[in-house]
C-alpha cells in the first residue's frame, strides 16, 4: 500500500505541469526576490512587459491569484480576513465598495499617485480603496439593423418602451450578472423608487432577460458572432472597439443618452495582515502609473483613471464615453441592492 502511495505521489508530481518559466531578473540580484501576491477576478489582465518592469525595478516576483468574478473574489477575501491569501486585492467595484469597507479588509494607503486622479473617482475618503479604472455599462446596438430598417436609434431610457422597439433589447438578470445589476442601477438612478414601473413597461415591450453577459452578447445580440435575434444588448461602452471589421468600421455603437449608462469604477487595496506592506504600496503606485494604465484599455476594455495615460487609437475611434452616466453612492447601493433586485425579480420574472 505504501509503495502504491509513493508511486502515486511520484506520478502526481510527474503529471502536474511544470511552472512556466517565471521571469527572473537577468543579472543575479544579491537579495532573493520578494514575492507579492495579488488576488483578482478572472477578467483581470496585464501585459508581460509591465509585470517584468515592476519585478525588475523592485526585485520582486508577482504571483496572481484569480478566483472567479468580482463578487466571488470579494467574498473569499472577506472570509479569509484573519489569514489573508494575498497582499493586494484588485477588482472591487463601486457596487461592492461599501461591503469591502464595512468588512474592513483594507489597510489605509494614501498613494502619492492619487494626486493626479480626478476627485470624482475617489469614492473612499479613508483612502483604503484606491481607484484604478472605470468603464461604462451601456446599451450597444447593431448599426446595420437600424440602418436597414430605417429605424431611429433610441436615445433615452424612455425610448426603449416605445412599440417600435418591441422585443429588440436583451438585458442580463441583475441577480446573476454584474452587468445586469449596473443597468438596473442606471434605471434606479433615473427613476428613483418608480423604477419598477419602468421595468413593467420594458417587460410589456418584450425585453428579453438572460443569465449573464456572455449569453446576452454572444447568443442574443445580433451584431456579435452569435447573430442572435436582438439588435440591442446591455454591454460596455468599450465593446464596439472589439467589433471592428477589416474595412475599419465597427458593427456596433453605444447609446449614450442621459442616464442610459452606469459608471463602474474598480478599486485596489492592500489587504490587512500583509507581510509585504512596502512592496504592496509599490504595486499600487505601479497600477496607477502610466505603463499599467495605458495597457488596460486593450487588455481589459476599461478606461484608465490616470488622465495622463494616452488612450490607444482603437479606443479613441470606436469606444465612446457617455457625457452623463448615471451614478449612485456606494452607501445607498450597499443598503438597497438586495431590495432592488428583489423588486426587479418580482416585476420582471414573476
Amino acid at each position, binding site marked *: *500500500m505504501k509503495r502504491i502511495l509513493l508511486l*502515486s505521489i511520484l506520478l*502526481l508530481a510527474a*503529471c*502536474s*505541469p511544470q511552472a*512556466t518559466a*517565471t521571469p527572473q531578473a537577468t543579472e543575479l540580484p544579491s537579495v532573493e526576490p520578494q514575492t507579492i501576491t495579488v488576488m483578482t477576478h*478572472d*477578467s483581470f*489582465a*496585464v*501585459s*508581460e*512587459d509591465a509585470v517584468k518592469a515592476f519585478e525588475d525595478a523592485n526585485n520582486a516576483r508577482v*504571483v*496572481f*491569484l*484569480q*478566483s*472567479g*468574478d468580482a*463578487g*466571488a473574489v470579494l*467574498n*473569499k477575501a472577506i472570509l*479569509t480576513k484573519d*489569514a489573508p*491569501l494575498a497582499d493586494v486585492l484588485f477588482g472591487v467595484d463601486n457596487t461592492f465598495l461599501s*461591503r469591502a469597507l464595512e468588512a474592513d479588509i483594507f489597510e489605509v494607503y494614501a498613494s502619492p499617485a492619487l494626486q493626479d486622479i480626478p476627485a470624482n473617482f475617489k469614492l473612499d475618503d479613508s483612502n483604503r480603496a484606491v481607484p484604478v479604472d472605470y468603464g461604462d455599462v451601456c446599451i450597444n446596438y447593431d448599426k*446595420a*439593423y437600424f*440602418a436597414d430598417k430605417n429605424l431611429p436609434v433610441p436615445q433615452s431610457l424612455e425610448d426603449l418602451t416605445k412599440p417600435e422597439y418591441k422585443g429588440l433589447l436583451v438585458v442580463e*438578470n441583475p*441577480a*446573476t450578472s454584474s452587468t445586469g445589476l449596473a443597468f438596473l442601477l442606471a434605471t434606479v438612478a433615473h427613476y428613483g423608487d418608480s423604477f419598477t414601473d419602468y421595468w413593467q413597461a420594458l417587460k410589456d415591450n418584450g425585453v428579453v*432577460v438572460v*443569465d*449573464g453577459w456572455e*449569453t446576452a452578447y*454572444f*447568443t442574443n445580440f445580433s451584431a*456579435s*458572432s452569435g*447573430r*442572435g*435575434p436582438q439588435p440591442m444588448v446591455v*454591454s*460596455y461602452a468599450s465593446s464596439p472597439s*472589439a*467589433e471592428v*471589421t*477589416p474595412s475599419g*468600421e465597427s*458593427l456596433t455603437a453605444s447609446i449614450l443618452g442621459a442616464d442610459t449608462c452606469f459608471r463602474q469604477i474598480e478599486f485596489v487595496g492592500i489587504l490587512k495582515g500583509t507581510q509585504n506592506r512596502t512592496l504592496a504600496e509599490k504595486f499600487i503606485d505601479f497600477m496607477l502609473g502610466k505603463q499599467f494604465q495605458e495597457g488596460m484599455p486593450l487588455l481589459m*476594455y476599461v478606461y484608465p483613471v490616470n488622465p495622463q495615460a494616452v488612450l490607444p487609437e482603437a479606443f479613441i475611434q470606436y469606444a465612446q464615453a457617455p457625457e452623463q452616466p448615471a451614478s449612485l453612492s456606494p452607501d445607498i447601493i450597499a443598503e438597497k*441592492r*438586495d431590495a432592488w*433586485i428583489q423588486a426587479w425579480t418580482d416585476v420582471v*420574472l414573476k
Partner: protein
Amino acid sequence: MVQKISHGDTENAEILNKNLRVSVTPWLTRILFWILPLSFLVVLFFFPLSKILALTFNLQTLTLGNLQSAFHVLLFTFYQAVLSTVLTLLLGLPSAYLFARFDFRGKSLLRALTAVPFMLPTVVVAAGFNALLGPRGLIHALFPLSSFNFIGTLTAILIAHVFYNTTIIIRVVGNALSSLDPKFESAARSLGADSIRVWWNVVLPLLRPSLLASSMLVFLFDFTSFGVILLLGGSKFSTLEVEIYLRVLKLPNLSLAALLSVIQLLCTLVFSIFYTRLVSRSTTQLAPRSTLVKPKGLKQKLFVAVLAFLLSSFFLAPLSALPFRSLFRLEADRGQRGEVQYGFTTDYYSELFINRRGSVFYVPPIQATLNSLGYAGATVILSLILGFPAAFALAKPTHLEKVLDPLIMLPLGSSAVMLGLGFIITYGKWLTLPFLVPFAHTLVALPFVIRTLQPAIASIPERLRQAASSLGASPLEVWKNIDLPILRRATLAAATFAFTISLGEFGATLLISRPEYPTIPIAIERFLSQPGGLNYGQAMAMATLLMLLTLISILLIEKFRLPNSGEF
C-alpha cells in the same frame, strides 16, 4: 495412527486458521480497504464542509418563510431531476443494449461521441444548442414558419440533461449487460416469452444493481444541476444549487446559503440511503462471456440502424456547431446584413498561438492541453487507487459498509460553491499548489468510479473464486484470472469517467486558480468573457480542440487492454 493424528492436527489448525481469518482478517482488510478513501473524503470533503457550515449556519434563518421558499425550490429541483432521469433512461437503456450486444461499423467512435458532452463547459453546449434550436438556429432557418421557443424552457433543461448524462447509463448498464449471459434470455425465449416479457422479467431484474447505480448518479447530477439551469433554463427556473450560488456570490446571505446546502445534503443522504437499501437486496452474479454479435435479420438491423442514426444526430447536431463556428466567420460588413455571409477562415486557430496583446494571462493552447491532460491523467490514477478498495469493500458489505455506503455519494450532492468556500477557510494558502487540482477533480470523480466498479465486483461469481482457491490458486492468481477479466470493462468505464470529469472541470470556482496552470475550459472561458468575433471564434476553436482531445482519449482508453485479459 501417527498419520491420522497429524492429519487431525492439520485439520484443527486449518479450522483454527479459518476461524482466525474470519474473525481477524476481515476487520483488518476492511480497515485497509477504507483507510485511503475515507481519509481522502474526511480531509477534502467532510472537514472543510463542516467547517464552513459551522461558521455560516445560523438557527435564526430557520424561519417559516425561508423554509417555505426553500421547499418550493426543492420541489422544482426534485421534479426536473426525476423527469430528466426518466428521459435519460429512455434513451440510455436501448443505447446501452445497442453497444453491449451489437457489433457494427463506427461503433467505438459513436460510443466515444456520447461521452463528449460530459466534459464540455455548459457555455459551449448552450452555444451549440442555440446554433441548432435558437431563434436564428438551423432548425428555424429550415422551417421558417415554426415559432417554437427552445431556450428558456423546461424542455431545454431536460434535453440538455439527457444530452449530458446518457453516457452514464450507456457505460454503467452497458457494462453489466455485456457481462450478462445471453443464455438466460434464450432460455426464456424458448419457453415462449416474447421480447418485451424477456426484458421485463429476465433482463431488467438481472441488471438491477447497475441500473440503480447509474440512475442514482444521473439523478444526483440532475438534482444538483447548475449551469444548465442558469444558461438554458433562463432566469425563470431555479434549483437548490442555483439558489445557493446566488446566496453565496450575488445576493450574499451566507446563512441562508448554509441552510439550503444542509437541505440539499440531507436530501442527497436520504436518496443515498434509499439507494443502498434497494441495491443491497439484489446482487447478480454474472458469467463473463462474449455477447457481441453482428445484427442479424431485418428487426435487429433496423434496430441498430435507427438507434445509431438517432444517437449520432442527437449528439452530433449540437456539437457540430462548434467546429463550424471555429472555421467560418459569420461577420458581415455593414450593409451586407440581409444574408448572413459565411467566410472560411483558419484565423481563429492560428490566433490561438499568438499572444497578440502580450498579456501575462495568455493561454498557449499546447500548454493548456498538456495541463488538462496531466490533471486528467493524475485524476484517473488517484480515483482508481482510492476507488478500487472502497468498491471492493462495498461489493461485499458488512455493517460498516451499510453505514459508509450512502456517505460515498455525498460529494455529488454538496454545493460546489459552499465546498469551495470551505476549502478556502480550511486550507487557505495551500490552495495555490497546482497539484491540488487533481485532488479536487477526484472528489467529483470518486463516486462515479466507485459506483461503476462496485456492481462489477459484486457480479464476480463467488463459486468460481472458491473453486479456484480450492484448486490451490493463490489469491493473486484468483484475482488475475477470475476478477480481472470481469473488472476490465468496469475499470475502463471508470477511468473514462474520471478522465472526462477532469477534462471538463473548471476547478476555478472550487479553488483559487493560478494563471500559470490554465486548463482548456479556463481558456475557453477567458475568450468568451470578452467581446468581438475573434474572441468568440477562438473560444469555439478551443472547444473544438477539447472535443477532439476527448474523442481521441476515450478511443485510446477503450482500445487499451489490461494484460492477461483477452477477449472473452
